[in-house]
């Protein structure tokens, strides 16, 4: 008897309050949207094989990259780790039976689905071609595509995000089991907590920005229109006030996963636990004060530039601290190379590159040359795909045995990790060079001398696609044919591993009491092997 077998029937899933079932619902929907967004990426790379805009009309290309951005950011990256792994494991990690607000949790999934349906509607109705950044006055006065439905979609999906974050913050504050002090929490919880702060405080500003754009588009007032006395730069400030913290919403939960995997597969407490915990919160706090580094060339004052550039340099430091802490977690550990660890190593290398190239952009002088080119595209794909997506895959593989009770085949999963890493580098590293050479982003056509690098990039994308398809295949296969996992196949220390796989609906048979530190491998050894019967 476990949370999956307890009740059957569609309604028991669609009306569930169980955080684990909601996590699975999210996982299925997020995966669907990931592949739609991925197909759009494939179209982009196909077009860019040749210098001419010959595969599709310019308008179509513009719609393709816009939808790719919107789907990947709002329907995949933002909810990926929090809504799936966070939902599933935060209550278990803190020893609680569920999140604080189960109905709000279910509501957040429905809002996600509604947002997703609105996005699908937008695509079917002809798409939108404003770019995911829907800059005004282009989006308010100069396009006649489906801006309104897109705005509504993001508005609704934003509420999904707000409710998830709100739920996490309340749960982490109020529902920790006896003995679970803040500094005994797994670092995964700390990271999601920091991301939740960003979700809760930042997303409403995006919501009001969308409302203002919608009003301007329908009523036509001109709060962003210079011919009517408005200011398009005001839009930029409002938009980036959310959209910069959004990138930290996207990466922090991934960093939380890495803390868990690196610790487990080196059998060691994370080096500098307190530093990593505080770095997560520091990233969240500083992340709110750097937004105008997206606006360096837009005519902001020199004084503004100095402030934002300096703060951007400061926000880079906690991420560096984390990378070093993870590296030193390996020191004198006892390391094995299962799939989650391979993805984690990939994360560390690729996120380091992505993060460092962010510094190139934070220094305003070099930003002048590099901004709005493929350098930016490469930078954010390194941190988001090389970083976050790898971390998400690490987490899925790490916790798959716990969620499903099954192991996936090890060799093919390790192969998929390596294929993904190679494909990723081939796809996105040439884009740094393209950007330095000056190739602008969002271009369907480009000067012929850029072709060879674009061809490399497309070739890499093909390999990357294979790398992402493989896990879907073998993970689904493992549901029926995978080896039975047992409670704790990795011998990890978290509370979630001390109970059966898949877990009970109430998570724990006996309410836990936390009487040891996080990542306490000595405590784990003293437990011996507790085999609670895993049924189903």
């Amino acid at each position, binding site marked *: 008897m476990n949370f999956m077998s307890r009740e059957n029937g569609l309604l028991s899933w669609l009306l569930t309050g169980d955080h684990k079932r909601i996590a699975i619902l999210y996982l299925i929907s997020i995966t669907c949207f990931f592949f739609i967004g991925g197909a759009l990426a494939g179209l982009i790379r196909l077009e860019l094989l040749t210098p001419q805009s010959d595969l599709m009309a310019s308008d179509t290309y513009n719609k393709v990259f816009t939808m790719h951005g919107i789907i990947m950011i709002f329907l995949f990256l933002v909810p990926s780790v929090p809504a799936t792994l966070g939902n599933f494991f935060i209550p278990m990690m803190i020893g609680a039976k569920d999140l604080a607000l189960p109905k709000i949790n279910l509501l957040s999934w429905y809002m996600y689905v509604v947002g997703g349906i609105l996005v699908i509607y937008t695509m079917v109705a002809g798409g939108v071609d404003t770019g995911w950044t829907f800059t005004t006055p282009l989006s308010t006065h100069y396009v006649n595509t489906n801006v309104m439905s897109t705005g509504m979609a993001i508005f609704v999906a934003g509420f999904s995000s707000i409710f998830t974050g709100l739920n996490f913050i309340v749960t982490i504050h109020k529902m920790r089991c006896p003995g679970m002090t803040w500094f005994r929490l797994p670092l995964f919880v700390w990271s999601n907590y920091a991301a939740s702060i960003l979700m809760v405080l930042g997303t409403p500003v995006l919501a009001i920005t969308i409302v203002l754009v919608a009003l301007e588009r329908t009523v036509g007032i001109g709060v962003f229109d210079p011919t009517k006395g408005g200011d398009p730069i005001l839009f930029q400030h409002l938009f980036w006030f959310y959209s910069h913290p959004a990138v930290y919403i996207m990466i922090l939960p991934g960093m939380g996963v890495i803390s868990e995997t690196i610790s487990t597969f080196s059998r060691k407490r994370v080096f500098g636990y307190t530093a990593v915990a505080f770095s997560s919160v520091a990233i969240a706090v500083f992340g709110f004060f750097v937004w105008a580094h997206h606006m360096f060339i837009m005519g902001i004052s020199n004084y503004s530039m100095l402030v934002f550039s300096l703060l951007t340099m400061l926000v880079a430091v906690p991420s560096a601290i984390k990378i070093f802490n993870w*590296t030193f977690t390996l020191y*004198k550990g006892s390391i094995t190379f299962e799939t989650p660890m391979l993805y984690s190593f990939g994360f560390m290398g690729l996120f380091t590159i992505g993060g460092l190239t962010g510094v190139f952009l934070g220094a305003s002088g070099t930003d002048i040359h590099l901004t709005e080119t493929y350098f930016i595209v490469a930078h954010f794909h390194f941190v988001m795909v090389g970083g976050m997506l790898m971390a998400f895959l690490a987490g899925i593989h790490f916790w798959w045995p716990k969620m499903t009770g099954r192991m996936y085949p090890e060799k093919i999963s390790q192969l998929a990790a390596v294929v993904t890493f190679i494909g990723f580098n081939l796809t996105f590293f040439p884009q740094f060079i393209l950007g330095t050479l000056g190739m602008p982003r969002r271009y369907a056509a480009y000067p012929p001398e850029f072709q060879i690098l674009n061809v490399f990039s497309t070739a890499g994308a093909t390999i990357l696609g294979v790398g992402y398809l493989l896990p879907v295949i073998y993970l689904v296969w493992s549901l029926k044919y995978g080896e039975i996992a047992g409670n704790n196949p990795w011998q990890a220390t978290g509370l979630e591993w001390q109970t059966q796989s898949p877990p009970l609906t109430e998570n724990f048979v006996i309410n836990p009491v936390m009487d040891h530190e996080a990542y306490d491998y000595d405590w784990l050894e003293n437990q011996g092997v507790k085999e609670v019967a895993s049924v189903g």
Partner: protein
Amino acid sequence: MNDISPVMWQFLVKWLTNFALYPPEASKIAPQMDALYFFMVLVSLIGLTIVVLLVLAFSVLYRKDRHPHAVQIEGSTLLEATWTIIPLGLFLIMFVWGALIYFRVYTPPANAMNIYVVGKQWMWKAEHPGGQHEINSLHIPTGQPVQLTLISQDVFHSFSIPAFRVKREAIPGRYTTVWFEPTTPGTYHLFCTQYCGTDHSQMVGEIVVLSPDDFKKWLASSTSGNSLAQDGERLFASLQCTTCHNANPASRGPVLAGIYGSKVTLSTGQVVTADDAFIRESILFPSQQISQGYAPIMPTFQGQISEEGVIELVEYIKSLDSYNRVRQTTNTTELLPGSERTGAPVQTQPAPQGKVNQ
């Protein structure tokens, strides 16, 4: 390089161009920016190497079969301090260095030659002060600081010259400026880098850098007849600005002769500099910049003139030292700095249309 055969040389150049890792350096600021860029690449490579080597080394030394018992280590304040302070220090160096370059790119020298650029969906229009108009191209001389005053007629665009390492947003509703000094004759890419709609990828052009002599020849051969200031004078009269802005002591509007660059006191008491933006705002949104001592009666011309028209008026007002007619001339070489152009009247030689004063 005499011992390298021409064929090899051609091959080398072609190889370098096709496998270039960075664009040609064709402006004075380009090598400076590249220096910072390569410093960052170096630091990144070192940082990445350190991380990768450590991860690899630890993975080998401490893999399970070799090191079966992990040693639980809490942390090390010394290490934490080290890897906080060193990255912070390096990032702060980059911050300062980057800021200095940023200031340099966006602070034009006083002797820069000004060219107006209007961006619109989906083309660039460049207007030389001598009246030469270009679409999707820009001819400029080497050895001469050139300032661009940019504005957009519709949405955001971005004027980007990778070879010069400069880029600036063209924003609807306000002027932005950038400057550079080309060093090497040649033709370089011009891109619009801010997504602006359907034909964003087609909004590209050429930056043609000529030697100063070639540039003078080009100016002479491309003139449309009137300089921007002359067109502006015509517009000034046709819009009946002279009704209030004239040499009459009882005129209802402030005197515009000599106003450019001077300090103006507004009715709110605020003191502002009468620069390009001020003049543009005064034409389009006069209620917000009533000069002290004058009634707020100036009508707005918004919707009645295009950005090009505004530019012509701005140029005209810049050139005014009195309300006498702007001197007729097509010799725009006098407009090049080095001839003390700024604020000074143009030469008095009336030349027939189309002929160049040699």
